[in-house]
C-alpha cells in the first residue's frame, strides 16, 4: 500500500519539506519492487543510498511520484567470491566495499577508487549499484567496472539479464537500465596473479567529483585505460593503450600521451575547459603508466 508521503510527514517536517510531493514505498522484497516499477514505470524511482537522488529531489530537478525504498532488501547487499567472479550486491555501501579484504585482494582497482568517492558520511550511505545507475560521467565506479569488464545483473518482473559494463553506460546519466529494472548485483572478474592496478584522480577538493580521473588495469590480456570526467560517460582510451601494448617505456608513454587526443575530446565544465582536461588526462596517463612500470 502506498502512503502519500506529504500527509504522513507533514506533522514532523512541516516547513522544512523541500522536495515536491511524492509517495513512498518501503519494499521488503524484490517482487514488490518489480510490481511497483511495472505499475508506475517512469513515475517511480528507486531509492538506494539517496545521496544523489535526495539532493535532486530537494532541488526539484527530479519529481517522481513514487519512491521505492530498496534498503530493507537484504538480498541486495554483500560481497562474495563466486568462482572467477567477485559478486558485489547493488545495495552494498561504498564504505563496506572500501573496507572489504576480498575487494582489496580480488579487485584492487575498486579498493583504490573508493577513498576518492565523496566523504565518509556519504560513503556510509551511497551504494555501489546506485553509483552505476546514476552514471555520473565524473564518478569513480562506472570507470572501474568498465576497466574491469564487469557484468551488471538487471532484473524486473520480465526476468533477469546480464549486461556488460561496456554496454551499460550509454550517454550522460543514461544507461541500459529499463524503467522497470533494478540492478541487483555486479560481477567483477577476479584479478589474476600479476595484475597491476592504478587509480589516479584530480579533484579540486578532496571528495569532489573528478576533474579528470583514470582507472588503469594491466592484465596479461592487455592494458585497460578508462578515463572519467572527460566525456558524457567513462571513456576507454584505446589508442593510448595500444601505444603502450608492447610494454611501457618512457618513449611509449610520450606516444600514448600524444595518442590520447584520438581517444578523448573532453567537453569543458565549470572547473576546466576541454584543453585543460586533455592536458590533465595526459599528465595522469603519464603518472599511471610510470606507476604500472614500477609495480
Amino acid at each position: 500500500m502506498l502512503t502519500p508521503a506529504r500527509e504522513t510527514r507533514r506533522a514532523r517536517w512541516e516547513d522544512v519539506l523541500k522536495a515536491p510531493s511524492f509517495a513512498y514505498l518501503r519494499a521488503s522484497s524484490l517482487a514488490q519492487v518489480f510490481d511497483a516499477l511495472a505499475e508506475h514505470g517512469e513515475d517511480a524511482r528507486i531509492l538506494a543510498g539517496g545521496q544523489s537522488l535526495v539532493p535532486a529531489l530537494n532541488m526539484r530537478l527530479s519529481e517522481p511520484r513514487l519512491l521505492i525504498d530498496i534498503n530493507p532488501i537484504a538480498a541486495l547487499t554483500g560481497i562474495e567470491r563466486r568462482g572467477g567472479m567477485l559478486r558485489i550486491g547493488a545495495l552494498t555501501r561504498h564504505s563496506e566495499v572500501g573496507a572489504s579484504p576480498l575487494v582489496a585482494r580480488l579487485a584492487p582497482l575498486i579498493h583504490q577508487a573508493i577513498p576518492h568517492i565523496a566523504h565518509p558520511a556519504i560513503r556510509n550511505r551511497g551504494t555501489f549499484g546506485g553509483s552505476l545507475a546514476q552514471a555520473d560521467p565524473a564518478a569513480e565506479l562506472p570507470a572501474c567496472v568498465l576497466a574491469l569488464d564487469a557484468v551488471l545483473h538487471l532484473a524486473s518482473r520480465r526476468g533477469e539479464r546480464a549486461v556488460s559494463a561496456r554496454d551499460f553506460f550509454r550517454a550522460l546519466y543514461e544507461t541500459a537500465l529499463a524503467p522497470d529494472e533494478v540492478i541487483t548485483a555486479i560481477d567483477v572478474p577476479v584479478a589474476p596473479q600479476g595484475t597491476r592496478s592504478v587509480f589516479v584522480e584530480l579533484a579540486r577538493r578532496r571528495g569532489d567529483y573528478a576533474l579528470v580521473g583514470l582507472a588503469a588495469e594491466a592484465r596479461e590480456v592487455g592494458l585497460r585505460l578508462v578515463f572519467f570526467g572527460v566525456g558524457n560517460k567513462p571513456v576507454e582510451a584505446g589508442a593510448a593503450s595500444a601505444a603502450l601494448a608492447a610494454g611501457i617505456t618512457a618513449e611509449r608513454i610520450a606516444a600514448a600521451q600524444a595518442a590520447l587526443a584520438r581517444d578523448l575530446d573532453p567537453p569543458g565544465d565549470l572547473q576546466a575547459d576541454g584543453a585543460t582536461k586533455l592536458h590533465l588526462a595526459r599528465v595522469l596517463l603519464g603518472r599511471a603508466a610510470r606507476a604500472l612500470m614500477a609495480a
Partner: protein
Amino acid sequence: MSERPLSFLDRPNSYIGKSVPRPNAQRLLQGRGVFVDDIRLPRLLHAAFLRSPYAHARIKHIDTAAASRRPGVVRVVTAADLAGLCTPWVGVLTHLKGMKSAPQHPLARDRACWQGEPVAAVAAESRAEAEDALAEIAVEWEELPPLASAEAALAPGARAIHDTLGDNLAFARAVDAGAVDDAFARADAVVAETFTFARHTGVCPEPRSILAEFDPGDRRLTLYCSSQAPHMMKEIVLRHFPLAETDVRVVCRDVGGSYGVKIHVYPDEMAVIALALLLGRPVKFVADRLESFVSDIHAREHRVAARMAVSRTGEILAIAIDDLTGIGPYSTYPRSSAVEGNQIVGLTGSWYRSANYRARLRVAFQTKPPMSQYRAVGHPIACAVTEGLVDLAARAIAMDPAELRRRNLIADEAYPWKSPAGLLFEKLSHQRALERMLELMDYEGLRREQRDLRAKGIHRGIGLASFVEITNPGPAFYGVGGAPISAQDGCSVRLEPGGSVTCAISVTEQGQGTETMVAQIVASVLGVALARVRVVTGDTERTPYGGGTWASRGTGIGGEAALQAAKALRANILDLAGAMLQAAPGDLDIAEGWIVDAETGARRIGLEEVGRAGYFRGDTLPPLTQPELMATRHHQPRDYPFAFTNGVQASWLELDIETGFVRLLKHWVVEDCGRMVSPLLVDEQIRGGVVQGLGAALFEECLYDAAGQLRNGTLADYLVPMAAEMPDIEVAHLETPLAGTELGAKGIGEAGTAGAPAAVMNAINDALAPLGARVSEQPITPARILRALGRL
C-alpha cells in the same frame, strides 16, 4: 593603607589574557541552538519568493491567480501590493561625495535587474506549499540586454541601467599625494601588473533568515532575525514602515555566522515584514542555499591596474593604482556598495613609508547581484595589490622580498603616522611583526629547503604579506554619511540578589564568542567566577543601544563598555558593602565572589549578602543609603577615526607544475590586535579569517556567463575551502595596547582574511618565478597556473 590601583589586569584571578571554554559552545554543539528557523509561532506563515530568471528583463505582466488558489496559500503579492506599506530606499552615504544609486523596493517593480531579484512572494501555511505555488505564477517577461561586466557598463555609450541616473558610474574617487610622476621618472625600476579578483560570496552556515510577527491589536512588530546589527535593523524598519519607535523590537537569538552578509537590507526581508503587516500573521522566510547564492550580497569583483617605482637600493618610491569594480544594479542599503573600493584606495600601500601615491577608483552598476561589505572589506585586494607589487619590485632589483619589506615598512618608532591617503595610525608594530615572522617560520631555513628541493624538481614557494586592518570605527565610517548605524556600544551590568551578575550588551554574538569575551571582562572586574556571569545580547528591548557586530569592533568598543560598566558597578557594590561593614569602600575589594579586605584579602561577606541587603533588607542599611546595583556605560571611539591593527602572514606551498595544483603546506600569522582578552578566540578569528582568505585565493568564484547568469550557484559547484585542503595555521601575537581605552583592545575579526590571499599569491609566484611565469588573477585555479606556464 596603600592605594590599590583599580586594575583588573594584574589580579591573580583575572580572566583577561586567558583562554577559557566558551559557555555557549556546549549548547550549540549539542544542536540546541535556537536559530530563526527553530522558532515556531502559532498561525505562522512561510514565505517563498519568485526570483527573476533573467539578469535584466521588463516585467510586462504577472498573473498570480492560479498560485493564489493553490492549497495552503494565503496570499501572493507583487510590488504593487506592497507599494503603500514600505517606502523605497536608496543606498548612498552622503560623505562619499557624488555617490548615486536608484530607489529599491521589496519586490521588483516593472523591471528586474539581476538574476535572483525577488519579483513576487507567496505566503502559505508551509514552505513546501509556498514553493509549489511559485511554479503557478505566470510572468510575462521581455528580456533586456544585460550589462554583466563593469567594463561594459562604463564603456562610452553604454545604456544606463537606471535612466534617471544618466550613466552607470555609482561612485568615483581619486587621490594624488606627493610627487608621483617625479618618483616614477627617477625610479631604477618600475613594475606593473593588473590584478583581478573574482566575485565571491559569504556562504553563512545559517542562511539569511527572518520571522516577522505583527500584532495588529497594538501595532507591535517583533522581528526575529539572523542579523549582526539588531538596532540598525530597527531603525531601518522605522524609516520604511508606518510603525512607532515604541512598537518595534528586533530579537537575534543564535546567529550561525554572518561575515558581513547579515548587516544589509535585503528586499526579500523587507517584503516579509510587509507581508506580516498586511496579513496580521507571523511570516517566516529562510533563504535556501540556492537562493542565497543569487540574493546574498556578493563581494570583491575588482580589477586593479597597479604600478610601483623602486630604487636600486630598495626604496619604494611611489605606488599608483586604478581600481574598477562592479557592484550590481543598486548600491546596497544602508552601508552602500562603495566602501570596498573606497577602502582599497585608502589602504593600498599604507603600511609602507612612501609618500607618493596615486589612486583612481570607479564603481560601476551592472546587472548582477548587489555587492557590498563582506569580511575584510577591501583589505584582501589592497593587500594583494601592494604585496604583489612589493614582490615584483624585489625581483626587479634582485633583492630578497623580506629585506625589501624591512627597508620600507613604517618604523615602529615613527608613530603617530599619517598615510598619503590620509589614514591615521596611532601605534603599529610592522617591523617587530616582520622580525617575529621571519624567526617563527625560519625564513632562512625555508629558503634553503626551497633551493634544495628545486634541484630535485620540487617547486615550493614562500609568500609574505604585511597588512593593516581597520577596526573599531568611529562615527566617521557610516554615521556622518547619514546611515542609522551606531558607532558606540553600551553595556549594563547588574548584581543579582544571589551574587551572580547579569550583563546586557549591544554587541552581538554570531558564533565568534562575543558573549565569552564580555563575560571574561565583567567577571575579572567584578571578582566573580566566569560561570556567575550571564550575558544577554541581541535584543533591542533588553540591551543598551549600540552598533552590533561589524568592522571588528566587538572587543575594542563593546569590551571597553563592559569594562567601564563593570567598574562602575564594582564601585557601587563596594559603596554598599562599605556601608554594611562600616568600612571605607577603598579598603575593600571583591575577589572570588567575596567582599574582602583589600590589604589582607581576608573574606568579609559574600556578594550574595550584598545583593540580599540591597534588594530585600534596605531596612538594615544606614539611613540615606540607596543601593545602585546596576550600572550602564557606553563607549565610543573618539581620538582616532579607526583603531588600526597590523600584522604579517606567510605561506609555504608546493606547486605541481604538471597539473597546476597547489598544496598548501603551512601558513603563519603574526598579528598585533592590542590587548587580547581571550587568546583562544583571537586565534580562532585569525584561523577562520585565513581560511576565508584562502578560499578567495584558490577556490571561490561566482561564475557568470555573458548573459549575467550564475553558473555555479550550489555548494557542489561553488568551491568553499574544506578542511582537507587547509594547511596548519600557526599564529603568534604582539600586543601594542590601544591608547585612549583602558582595555587597550583593537579588533581581530578580519586580519586573517585581509592578508591570506596576498601571501598565497606571492608564494605561488615565488614557486613560478624560476619558470618565468606569474599569476595575478584570483582565484588562482589550476587552469590559470597552467596557462601562465604556457602548458595549455
